[in-house]
């Protein structure tokens, strides 16, 4: 058992636990943040994506030991921001959500790419989404939603 401190959704947190646990399990079980999902459990699907230091990471592939002192934001934390409001509206307007399992990861990927590149091209959006699988919408609507979010949220990123 080791005491680990980091920032979670904007607040400092401390937890005494086994540092060999996956960040995903700590988020879901200890903090009851169930937005990040376990899809493949090996870093191929992006359903568990969260932001670490403002960049997308797969929480199933991050050991808790690597989170010491880091800033972690889950979809729950992002959902309180004005950027999220714009992304959510764009996803709704473009029909970019169907079953919803991949959606938290897709929105984390959107935030991560727009924070580095506020006006991505189609090709850059595809690279930004390349680690996230969706088995319902077929991606085109998600790509459209991201373009719409970038346009409607101009200046937010």
């Amino acid at each position: 058992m080791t005491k680990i401190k980091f920032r979670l959704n904007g607040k400092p947190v401390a937890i005494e636990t086994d540092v060999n646990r996956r960040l995903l399990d700590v988020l879901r079980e200890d903090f009851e943040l169930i937005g990040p999902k376990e899809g493949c459990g090996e870093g191929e699907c992006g359903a568990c994506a969260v932001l670490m230091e403002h960049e997308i990471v797969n929480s199933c592939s991050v050991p808790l030991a690597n989170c010491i002192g880091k800033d972690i934001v889950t979809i729950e934390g992002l959902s309180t921001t004005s950027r999220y409001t714009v992304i959510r509206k764009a996803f709704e307007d473009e029909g970019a959500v169907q079953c919803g399992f991949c959606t938290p990861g897709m929105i984390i990927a959107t935030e991560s790419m727009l924070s580095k590149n506020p006006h991505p091209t189609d090709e850059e959006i595809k690279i930004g989404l390349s680690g996230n699988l969706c088995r319902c919408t077929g991606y085109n609507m998600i790509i459209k939603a991201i373009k719409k979010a970038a346009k409607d949220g101009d200046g937010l990123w």
Partner: protein
Amino acid sequence: MVKTSIPKNLAEALSVLSKEKYRLVAGGTDMLVQNRNRATLPIKYKDNVMYIANLEELFGITEDEETIYIGACEPLEAILENDLTPKLLKETILEMASPAIRHTGTLGGNIGNASPAGDSLVPLYLLNAVIEVKSETETRRLRIQDFIQGVRKIDLADNELITKIIISKTEFTKAYFKKVGPRLSDAISKLSFAGAITFDNDIILDLRFAFGAVNITVVRRPEIECLYIRKTKEELKASVNEIVEAYSKFIRPIDDQRSNKEYRKKVSINLLKSFIEEL
């Protein structure tokens, strides 16, 4: 009960390693999958484990006149975004995994993992990369082909860790990396290829080929490459069958869940041919 170490700096890490054996975990993107436990239980390591991803001494990319130095724990995405990174390595990293994995996965980790299908190894062999390893008392620099000894076998003592990847600055007239996998992202290569050539007018000054996932380690054969130095482009093109034959001996892939040996061999040879024929 296995021990866990999270050293605060490189000196502490090397001191702990000098006393006891630890498995090293950098970004964890391979180690967590390889040692995965059931359901939501902690990762189940068989040995002591040391987490090194946050050791600041292992970050950053620096240069001097002729050389680039990449910190072993520099994340792949940061290497991709850095202006100092050689173009061929950038092209390769862009085809590795996905942004999420590249934000945590490291170049030192890809080398230490020493998978025959490790994508970054192909351009690193081609670029004559040198691996720097340190223990508490010694620093060693090894050529990558000497550091990687076989499938998941590396020349790293229990008291050492990889600190830097050292690459000479080299300009090529033409160089590229090609990966063949089932999906554009997050796919482990069925096979990969890198070629590089430098001309002065039509005279070849430098020629290099490297093949991934077709032998226990990356295939690079300087003794074949050097036969065509000072030859002309047309002479090289006329020698394509002889070059294919020379490499065929070393392209010895296996059947596994990702591909089979016939396909791997055929496509590797086709990539070599097309590199030469398109010059």
